[in-house]
């Protein structure tokens, strides 16, 4: 049985508020039998240092990716993962994580490829929960394993591949990386290793809307009105548009995919997870640069 929805007034303004919960709501519903909390972080050891009581860990690197091919796990592996995490097909899954929920949003997006119905994000993520002094533990959860059917992954609706993007050029594209990555000055975020792509710049026609502009200082999402000003106003998108979002490997753009799809109700948003690490290494794909890098 799915958990009740969070009726917080800020959330109810969003197009699909059933996909977001507040820290206060989660604190009250931690023990709901039909709910599993999933922590997904960039730092894969962070969960072990402490986590929300009862939360299970999903490691984006080892558990959601195929170990050999650059792709996500298939239906069988996903079902195995769900069983061992104690997640059933009807379970309400609440994701949270570090770095303003990048990886939590990414995990939520991957779960969406398998059509899991009740997926929610904890507004503000791990940092907000901790800042509010809410309980954390190092105790490993003991969840009984669950039944989960083998479901074929559906890449057609919310995932874009390189060839899809090639024919998409000219339609709305959102590059959510930092301005220096967009311009081609940097190949990765500032202070991160400058490796991973042979060419810098962006996909022709892409609008630069860094993911962080959708978030407040505390990591929560901005209000619906603010998001509309940003995406409809500044970036000129509209809810019926066919939109592709991308970043470096698809994690920051999952955050934007979530905002457009669930908070603003856009119906055709695809995340290009190959992102710049594929595009910037591909032979003869078109690249645009705003200005020559300085120096």
């Amino acid at each position: 049985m799915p958990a009740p929805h969070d009726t917080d007034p800020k959330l109810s303004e969003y197009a699909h508020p059933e996909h977001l919960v507040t820290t206060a709501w989660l604190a009250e519903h931690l023990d709901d039998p039909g709910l599993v909390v999933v922590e997904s972080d960039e730092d894969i050891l962070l969960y072990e240092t402490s986590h929300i009581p009862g939360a299970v860990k999903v490691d984006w690197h080892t558990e959601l990716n195929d170990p050999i091919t650059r792709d996500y796990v298939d239906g069988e592996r996903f079902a195995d993962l769900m069983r061992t995490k104690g997640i059933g097909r009807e379970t309400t899954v609440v994701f949270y994580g570090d770095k303003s929920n990048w990886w939590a949003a990414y995990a939520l997006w991957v779960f969406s490829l398998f059509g899991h119905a009740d997926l929610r994000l904890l507004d503000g993520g791990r940092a907000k929960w901790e800042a509010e002094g809410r309980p954390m533990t190092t105790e490993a959860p003991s969840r009984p394993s669950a039944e989960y059917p083998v479901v074929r992954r559906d890449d057609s609706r919310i995932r874009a591949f390189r060839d899809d993007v090639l024919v998409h050029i000219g339609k709305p594209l959102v590059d959510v990386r930092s301005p220096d990555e967009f311009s081609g000055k940097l190949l990765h975020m500032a202070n991160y290793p400058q490796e991973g792509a042979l060419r810098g710049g962006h996909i022709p026609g892409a609008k630069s809307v860094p993911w962080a502009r959708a978030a407040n200082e505390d990591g929560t999402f901005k209000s619906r009105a603010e998001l509309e000003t940003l995406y409809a106003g500044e970036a000129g998108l509209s809810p019926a548009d066919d939109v592709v979002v991308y970043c470096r490997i698809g994690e920051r753009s999952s955050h934007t995919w979530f905002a457009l799809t669930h908070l603003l109700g856009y119906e055709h948003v695809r995340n290009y997870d190959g992102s710049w690490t594929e595009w910037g290494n591909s032979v003869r794909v078109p690249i645009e640069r705003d200005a020559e890098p300085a120096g």
Partner: protein
Amino acid sequence: MTVETPLPAPLAEVVALFASSPPRDRLELLLDYSQQIPPLPDRFREHPERLEPVPECQSPLFVAAEVDDERRVHLFVEAAPEAPTTRGFAGIFHAGLDGLPADEVLSVPGDVTARLGLAEVVSPLRLRGATALLARIQRQVRGHLGDHT
């Protein structure tokens, strides 16, 4: 199979510990090392600018390597508690290199991080960050040796 460069004994011990553990336990080990970094002495806490940033790591990390009159290396590292993986790598180098003769620290090959068997559980970017940390330690040691001669 190529012959691997021998490692200084304390670092070889750490590497052997990782390599002989099943992959799942390697994360636990990394967590142990993340908790073994000693607190900074006052002269660094009061002057954090004396620590060199390691921008190749995914989370902020700062390191200083000193060489004493007996040409032994002393390492000082600072990394945020919310970045345990980065701390773990710093802890490995601290456990494996602190107090060793400078020449031994300089002899450590850049691919040592690949021998920890962490590639399956840690993203490649993180391993590169760890390699960069070692390179910065060695460069600082070389700099200090230059000062002494």
